[in-house]
């Protein structure tokens, strides 16, 4: 292998690792309804505990942006979507089952 190829491979591997570590999460909620309030609290706690400094959390209120309910195919809510790292995951509920959330997110 030439030097250039190994460099490319190394860069790719590093970028991949980096991407692997960074979590992008979208939480879809319905205003300040109880399930949504709980979900927001829970996800913030989980992110701080398991993903400190390597996460991006976006909280989307479908009352404010109803079009997203269609584009994201939302029926049950609250809905947590893991965009990265691969594979994408979807979870419904107020995230009070922390073990389940951790497992599905692959944080354990």
């Amino acid at each position, binding site marked *: 292998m030439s030097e250039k190829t190994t460099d490319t491979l190394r860069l790719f591997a590093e970028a991949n690792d980096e991407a692997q570590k960074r979590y992008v999460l979208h939480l879809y909620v319905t205003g300040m309804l109880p399930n949504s309030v709980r979900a927001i609290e829970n996800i913030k706690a989980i992110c701080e505990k398991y993903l400190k400094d390597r996460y991006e959390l976006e909280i989307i209120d479908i009352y404010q942006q*109803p079009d997203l309910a269609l584009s994201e195919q939302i029926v*049950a*809510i609250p809905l947590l979507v893991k965009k990265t790292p691969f594979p994408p995951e979807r*979870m*419904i509920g107020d995230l009070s089952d922390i073990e389940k959330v951790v497992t599905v997110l692959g944080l354990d």
Partner: protein
Amino acid sequence: MKTPIAKKTTVKDFKFPKSATGIQGLDEIIFGGLPLNRTTLLLGNTGCGKTIMAMEFLVNGIRLFEEPAVFMSFEEKKEDLVLNVKSLGYNLDRLISEDKMYIEQVGINPAEINKTGKYDLEGLFVRLERAINKVGARRVALDSLDKLFNGLDENIMRSEFLRLLNWLKEKEVTSIITSEIGDPFLTRKGIVEYIADCVIVLDNRITNQISTRRLRIVKYRGSVHGNNEYPFTIDESGISVYPLISQEVQQQSSTERISSGIKDLDVMLDKKGFYIGSSILISGTAGTGKTSVATSFAFSVCKARKTCLYCAFEETPNQVIRNMESIGFQLGLFVKSGVLTFYYARPTLQNLELHFMAIRKIILDIKPRVIILDPITNLMTEGPNSDIRSMLTRFVDFLKTQQITVLFTAAITVGSIERNPSDEGISSMVDTWIMVQDIEMDTKRSRSLCIMKSRGMLHSNEVRKFDITSRGITIKPFVEEKNKTIADTRRTAKEQKNLSTSKDNNENNETAR
């Protein structure tokens, strides 16, 4: 001291407002339509037609009442839906582009559902609200519920379902929610019995390898309804439901007469012909000229400018027309002018009931005064006899209420002449029964015609010579010759006996008019 009891006031004749479906035959059965601004549950097995019925309800709302609609599909893809209803003549693309119809596909993948705690279906409500507001919908369909609830918690499903019904009511939309029948959610929790305002069940069962569709009103809040099953069809014009004939058929027996088209036959029928609205059977062995009698009748009906429907189950319409030309009747003109309509079908492809329903549809369309079924026996090889009998009875009843005169021809085998004629079944049902037979006279083949019965009139009981000439049909008394006895002896003794027995019966009937 007795407290005065307030007098009970009853609201009489309160009619719950309805949303007409526009589906042929259905609104009659459901008291004018589905309950307005309420939800109707439409249940049935796969392929029973619930999606099409829901869609037709929406499309008719747009087409007939300018009520925009929303279709939320949990099962079929939007493109598939549009394509499937295209064959019914609905151009959904156009309705969608005109903002009269909005279709949203709700993708639910139960495998993806990871539950982490409490949730509700507010996402669906948000989408519904958005959809309804988009077009100003007055009608909504959700298809189908079991797909929506697949994999979700039962207690959440129940409370959300109740919430959905109330929500739709507040939105003032009339909705249809479809679901698979026997879904445990619906049956176990008493949804059907207590919560839904209206429940209709569709059924698509297979008997003798032929499928028949049926509809049943399980519940209609505020109304008493029968538990009957109504047959329905789905064809290129959509769904057609066929109401049953009520037990007490209001029959105004007409005393008016209609010519049979054969002068000599009219003479035998009290010089006047058939009663309008009556049923006539012409039976005879193959090739005895039953079709000629039937078509002579059709010809005279058409000549009098009355609409006639000719249902041909053996010969093609062209054959019938050609055969009639050879004896001097030009039917072609009447077909062109629309006075004469042919219904040609090969009975092996569909079952008897479907034929009757198709014919009923045509009858409702063209409103004929006379209908001819030639021959009825081809239809009767399908299905068990009891079914056939009830179907025929219903059909004849239906025609009577419409005051349509019906003529059947029936082929009978030589052997059956020996049996008691009333075993044929149809003969006991009809008002007038004419039998045509082959006889041999000298060396010539000839035919005889005899009126076996004709209710309510004095009729001839003679066996007369029946001839088909190039100038039409003649029915003359047999010439008193020695040849007559030869003709008699050619028949079996039993046949002769049967004819005399019937004649005796007729004589008895004649006196009691």
